[in-house]
């Protein structure tokens, strides 16, 4: 029976590299661990196994980044910007407008104080923002299958991204007014406009996976 660190190492490797290569790599590492370790000592074998997985991590992370980033061009970057802009617009234009009145009404109805109403508001903002983020990311998947596959098959990273966004919505101060707020709106509008332009010009025929062979570089 394998030790927990082995399973954790396997999980981490498959998270970093969610492709068919992960199985081949794990098989190779298994073979190395069998040959290099003391056959009578499973603990030693597992230690070699975990060491080899950890040793492979940096290069695999780099490779995964290459697979995703290698396909990025201006259109892709701006598509991501569009997603972010959509989330910001959603949060500020829709959720923020409806969240406060809804939370206040709920708070008044239930006899809750301002603090409770504020908490309900931010929970609403977090959930709606997260949904908007996921929907836009999924919508952009038609143009960016590698990233979507990566996020979709790398649960740890997806959860971390989602948590980071939720924490942002939970802890950020209330930017109801001020110079920063206005600058944010202007910046969002500019990003959204440029992103829409890039979407209109985007040609999916030009984008193939690096693993598709030499034609990928043409």
């Amino acid at each position, binding site marked *: 029976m394998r030790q927990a660190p082995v399973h954790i190492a396997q999980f981490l490797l498959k998270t970093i590299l969610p492709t*068919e*290569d992960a*199985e*081949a*790599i*794990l*098989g*190779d*590492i*298994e*073979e*190395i661990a*069998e040959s290099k370790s003391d056959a009578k000592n499973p603990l030693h074998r597992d230690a070699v196994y975990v060491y*080899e997985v950890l*040793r*492979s*991590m*940096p*290069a*695999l992370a*780099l*490779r995964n980044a*290459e*697979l995703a980033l290698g396909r990025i061009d201006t259109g892709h970057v701006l598509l991501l910007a569009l997603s972010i802009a959509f989330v910001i617009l959603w949060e500020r234009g829709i959720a923020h407008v409806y969240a406060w009145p809804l939370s206040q009404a709920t708070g008044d109805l239930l006899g809750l104080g301002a603090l409770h109403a504020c908490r309900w508001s931010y929970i609403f903002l977090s959930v709606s923002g997260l949904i908007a983020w996921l929907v836009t990311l999924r919508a952009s998947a038609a143009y960016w299958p590698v990233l979507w596959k990566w996020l979709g098959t790398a649960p740890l990273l997806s959860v971390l991204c989602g948590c980071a966004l939720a924490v942002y919505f939970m802890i950020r101060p209330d930017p109801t007014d001020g110079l920063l707020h206005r600058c944010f709106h202007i910046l969002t509008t500019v990003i959204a406009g440029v992103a829409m332009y890039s979407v209109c010009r985007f040609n999916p025929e030009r984008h193939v996976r*690096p*693993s598709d*062979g*030499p034609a*990928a*570089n043409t």
Partner: protein
Amino acid sequence: MANYLGEFEIIVLAALVRLGDDAYGVSINDEIESRTGRTSSVGALYTTLSRLSAKGYVRSRLGEATPQRGGRAKKYFEITSEGLASLEQSARVLHGMLGGIAGWPQKAPG
């Protein structure tokens, strides 16, 4: 534009040529270690093989799964004719630079 090979790419391609049909992760690493004394991680090897595959210099196929590998299949790699041409080109470039320096090999490759 010429697609130049990096040092480790040259080593990996040369190992593929030497190993022929039996080139997979472990055997390639063993070959490199025995001939150069250089130890690399499996991840580093697959990263390089992936780059070479993207350039069209290497092709792969899945092999048999064995109990020794935890029931996982081997992934065999094979150099393509483009890869071989690029390896020869790199060898010529290296020889052009190193040839004539006292103490270096004088025989031209290929």
